[in-house]
């Protein structure tokens, strides 16, 4: 089987990889590039645990072939903190105890950041609808929503 050579940018770093055509972006992120923050929950686009952004657009990396990443800019959870400085969303998730097992957390954080990047002052309803594609099976959603709205307020300087 012939492998494709893919040139992309991941978290600001020019990145190249070889992949077979049937592999998803999630497969390559985790198994080839060892960026294991993006999780495989359902592999059918239902749970959002594999959320990344592609050219700023939130997508499920399990529903995108890795070859499609050619020429595009990918952002994953690994690009969120600046060294040891957590992003305000990450800090607020800890402060509000918005996670238990943590499996859905990277996807929720990436999705929440995509929301705040385009809407710095979302309502609770907008936040809930935006995050409807991120499933959590243990914490529930209320603490997550509080954490996102609190982070939004901090980022606005409110």
């Amino acid at each position, binding site marked *: 089987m012939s492998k494709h050579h893919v040139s992309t940018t991941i978290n600001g770093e020019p990145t190249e990889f070889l992949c077979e*055509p049937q592999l998803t972006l999630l497969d390559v992120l985790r198994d080839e590039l060892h960026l294991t923050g993006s999780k495989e929950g359902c592999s059918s686009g239902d749970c*959002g645990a594999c959320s990344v952004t592609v050219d700023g*657009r*939130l997508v*499920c990396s399990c529903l*995108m*072939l890795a*070859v499609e990443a050619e020429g595009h800019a990918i952002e994953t959870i690994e690009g969120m903190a600046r060294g040891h400085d957590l992003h305000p969303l990450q800090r607020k998730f800890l402060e509000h105890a918005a996670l238990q097992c943590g499996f859905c957390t990277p996807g929720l954080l990436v999705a929440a950041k*995509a929301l705040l990047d385009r809407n710095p002052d979302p309502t609770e309803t907008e936040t809930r609808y935006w995050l*409807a594609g991120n499933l959590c099976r243990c914490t529930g959603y209320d603490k997550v929503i509080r954490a996102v709205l609190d982070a939004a307020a901090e980022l606005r300087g409110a």
Partner: protein
Amino acid sequence: MPMLSYIAPSTVDEAVRLLAGASGAAKVLSGGTDLLVQLRSGRTKPDLIVDTKRIPGISGIREQDGAFVIGAATSGAVIGECEALKDAWPGVVEAANLIGSTQIQGRASLAGNLCNASPAADSVPPLIAARATCVIAGANGRREVPVESIVTGPGRTSLGPDEFVLEFHLPKRPPRSADAYLRFIPRTEMDIAVVGAAVSLTLDPGGVCTDARIVLGAVAPTAVLVPEGAAALIGRKLDETAVAGLDKAARGACKPIDDKRGTIEYRTKVAGVLARRAATIAYQRAGERR
């Protein structure tokens, strides 16, 4: 896993050549939100995937003298951000934006929603109600056909193996025209339509319907046009008689299945209710444009 090839051609001609020349099964990829799930489950086992997204103009929306051209691979997110389209065709936009989560919206395309040929596809009823056409590219050149001629049954389309959808055309709106789409699901988000109803109306200055198109989704093997429903509205304001006639016509057009989302009886009743409610919204919207 059979040998799978992936090619992302940069021209329409090259894409058609690849599809026409494929020795085995070929699949067209745009957003991939249905195709990748089918690949994963083994429901489809193509030898070749032709990714259309490198073809210039296949993603994006152009306005031409009040008419709109929507590229086949345009995502729901891009459709939802187009204010001019939302203004002219609010029903088409609200339907496209109901498909899946924010993540799905980032990729799922209009052509994919059509060609996946689910009876419950949300964007299809309002496109048919809008008298939208699609331009199809194939080995014999291009042809433009009404959207309703594409889906022939669940998972089946009228497209030849060498053909793919290039773009959608939405006509210029007469004054006092508007559309609306409603779907019923058992929860508030992230589910598949039990019933969908699209209504497109044009009114005269006195508020009388001069044109109407009613289309139901998820109540038959394909989306169904309800001409009797349109006839009940045309020549009247949206009065009690018109609304009752529409409800009856919508129920009469249903040939639904029983499944976990709803029984035949339930789907039929809800189809009448949603048609009435969508007509009320479209009527209000059209009236605000006088």
